[in-house]
Structure formats: structure tokens, C-alpha cells
């Protein structure tokens, strides 16, 4: 069982820590650093709740080890809103359209949509919906999420 020293940046803050090799990135973010906005549910890549951005790319934090994130820049849902509390436009759209119920899946949904829009600010409804195949909302609040997506794509919601 090996332990490893890692340095990484989360939402602009630098962190150093020693992690056991088997610690997932998601678990490290939550338990090691207190970024509890990232939710872990299935921990085998099915639900998408744990999605974070690693070096600009959205991925499952339960399917990656913390040690593999050494040197990376991570964005979690806590990093989406502005420091003054102004919501990211994805968060605002989800809020406006009742795109969340219990909110458990929402951090992952918000990271995916924010990343798709970052890569392509004029992403279409279809492109965003396709990326959403990687998320399960156990409250089945999909229609609210789809309305939020249409709003983000600039279509009448």
C-alpha cells in the first residue's frame, strides 16, 4: 500500500496532501479537502454525480485516483459561481427552470453543461442533451434539466 504526495489546484486554490494510492479523486476532494459539493453515489461510473473538470475536461471523479490528479487543475461545482455569489449561467438556468429537485445529481450536471458550453459557447440543445446521457437524475427531474438546456441554447424554454 503506497502513499503519495500530490500537489493540485482546486477552484484556483493550491493544495498539497499525502494520499493513499487507492483514494479516488472524488473521495479526496470531499474527505481530504472538504469540497463536499462533489457527490459520490454509485462509485462505478454509472451516475455522473461525481463529475468534475480536470484540466478543462469533464470526467468522473470516482473513476480516477487522487494520485493521478497530481499536478492537475480541478474545477468542482463550488468553483462555478463567482466569488461574490453570482451564479454561473448554467446554475442560473437550472434554478430558473426547476432543473433540480433533491439536488444530488446537480453538481455533476452543472459541471458537464458548463464544460460543454466552455468548449463551445454556442452548443446546441442536442449537443448538450447528448452529453447528459452520462448523468442519472434519481428524482427523474429530466424535463426541468431539458428546459434549462433549451434556455442555455437560446431556444424558447
Amino acid at each position, binding site marked *: *500500500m503506497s502513499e503519495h504526495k500530490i500537489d493540485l489546484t482546486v477552484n484556483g486554490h493550491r493544495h498539497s496532501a499525502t494520499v493513499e*494510492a487507492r483514494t*479516488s479523486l472524488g473521495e479526496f476532494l470531499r474527505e481530504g479537502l472538504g469540497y463536499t459539493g462533489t457527490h459520490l453515489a454509485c462509485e462505478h461510473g454509472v451516475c455522473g454525480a461525481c*463529475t468534475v473538470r480536470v484540466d478543462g475536461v469533464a*470526467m*468522473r471523479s470516482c473513476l480516477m*485516483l487522487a494520485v493521478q490528479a497530481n499536478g492537475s487543475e480541478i474545477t468542482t461545482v463550488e468553483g462555478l459561481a463567482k466569488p461574490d455569489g453570482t451564479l454561473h449561467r448554467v446554475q442560473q438556468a437550472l434554478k430558473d427552470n426547476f432543473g433540480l429537485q433533491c439536488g444530488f445529481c446537480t453538481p455533476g450536471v452543472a459541471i458537464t453543461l458548463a464544460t460543454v458550453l466552455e468548449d463551445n459557447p454556442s452548443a446546441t440543445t442536442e449537443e448538450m442533451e447528448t452529453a447528459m*446521457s*452520462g448523468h442519472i437524475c434519481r428524482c427523474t427531474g429530466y424535463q426541468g434539466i431539458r428546459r434549462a438546456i433549451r434556455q442555455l441554447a437560446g431556444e424558447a424554454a
Partner: protein
Amino acid sequence: MKPAPFDYARPTNVAEACQILAEAGGGATVIAGGQTLMPLLNLRMSQPFILVDINGIADLKGVSRIDGGTRVGPATRQAEALRDSTLAQHLPALVTALGHVGHYQTRNRGTVGGSVSLGEPAAEMPAAAVALGASIEITSAQGTRMVKAEDFYIGPYMTVLEPEDLVTGIVYPDWPDGHVVLFREVAQRTGDFALVGMVGALVLEGGKVARAGIAWFGMGPTPIKARQAEAALIGKALAEIDPDAVAALAVADTAPFDDHHASAEYRRTVGKRIFARTLREALDLRSAA
């Protein structure tokens, strides 16, 4: 914390990786994207003593042209392969199949080589390798060897790889520009493993099929080459091809099973339909053009 404890190594070159694998005497597991392995670790279905992370080996990443073919580094991310212009030009069937591998978030981390070397029987990448006639480059401390994809898979999640082996490349032979791409799969939800699927390529010369490479996924314990269908197609003029008869031959080569997603009968029935429809659409398109 879900996995059993393990050590972790991040070699920076192939020789170093192979040495770690050789020394581990079967206790090591290679991790690339981890999109299949991490669930197995979390469920403790896989309990290696040491995890060998190949993400730090630059030689194992990227797509390059070689004599008569294209070489894909096994640690190339699926999302990067999907955007790669060389693959788009030379291996459109592979790119089409890649678009159906997992989800946006898992393609961002998952690798082409991971999917090829794990050998999930319902996955797209192993079948695409078999259909397109790829060879798997395998390296160990003993040296390097090439194994044809059709000889590589021996059962569900079982391949000819030995514990000390590392997949160091997937080499796809060239298919001429303008060849016909065949792809269709049926899955319960977008991004799920397919219940039934087929992928392949056809080369037409002078109105006849000159070359065919087609394989099934989700239709048996391994990806399955549709040998009888390929043989029936080669040499035929488009007008002579009966897609339903060829599809029946293609299904005759399969060995689907019942599981909680679908019965073997369902897979055979749907497989025959999608095979015939894909062929018909691809050939109609050609004869109209």
C-alpha cells in the same frame, strides 16, 4: 475508500513499465483511462498488488501513420481519437464506433487501448479492431510481438495477454479512401453497452465488393467476425447482393447468450434485421451515387 489497498507506479517509458510488470509476477494491473478498471477495483472484483499507470508514457499516446496503416497509441483518449483528423480520413468506421463508446465524460478519460485490451464482448472497440483487421502490438520484458485482433480475444474479458504483457499499439491496416462504413447498434440507453451491434467496412471496385471486414459485438463471448457474410459479399456486384440472405449468414457465425438484458433469440432476430438494414442502406447509397 472502496478498493483493496495497492501500490501505485507511474513509469515514464515502456521498458520501465514492462520491468515492473515482469517483477510483479502476475500481481500487477495496468491502468490507462480506468473507466472499466476503476469500477472493478471499487467492487473489489480486481485486487492487484500494484497498479501500473501508463498515462505518463508519452510513446503510448497519439495517432500516427505508418507504412500501409495507422497506429493508435493505446493510451490515446477516446475523445481525442474521435476528433483526430488522421483517423477521420483513414478509419471512418473506427471513428463512427468511437462515438458510441460510453458517455461524453467517460470518453474524456477512457482510452482506445483500454477498451481494445479489456475485451468486453459488447464493446465497440474490440469489434472494430476485428472487423478492420487490426493487429495488437504487445510488449513485455521478453520483446514485442504482433497478434491479429481476431486471434486476440478468447472469452469475455479474456485475451491472449499474459500478466507481464503491455499493449503498446493498435495497428489498423489501410482501407482505401471512399470505402463504405457499416455501423449499427441497439442499446437500451445512449452510452450503454450494446445489446447487439455490428461494425465494418466494404471496398467497392468496378461495382463489385472487393474487400469486406465485418464483426459483431454483443453476439457472443468475444467480438465475432462475420466470416460467412464477408465471403458471400466478396466478388458480388451490388445488384446481386441479397441483404437478408447475407444477414442470415452473418447471424449463423454468432453465439449469443441470454442475460438479464436480452435473450439470445432477441439478439439473433434483431441482429439479422440491423445487419440487413445497414447493408441495404450502405449499398443503396452507393448504387444511387
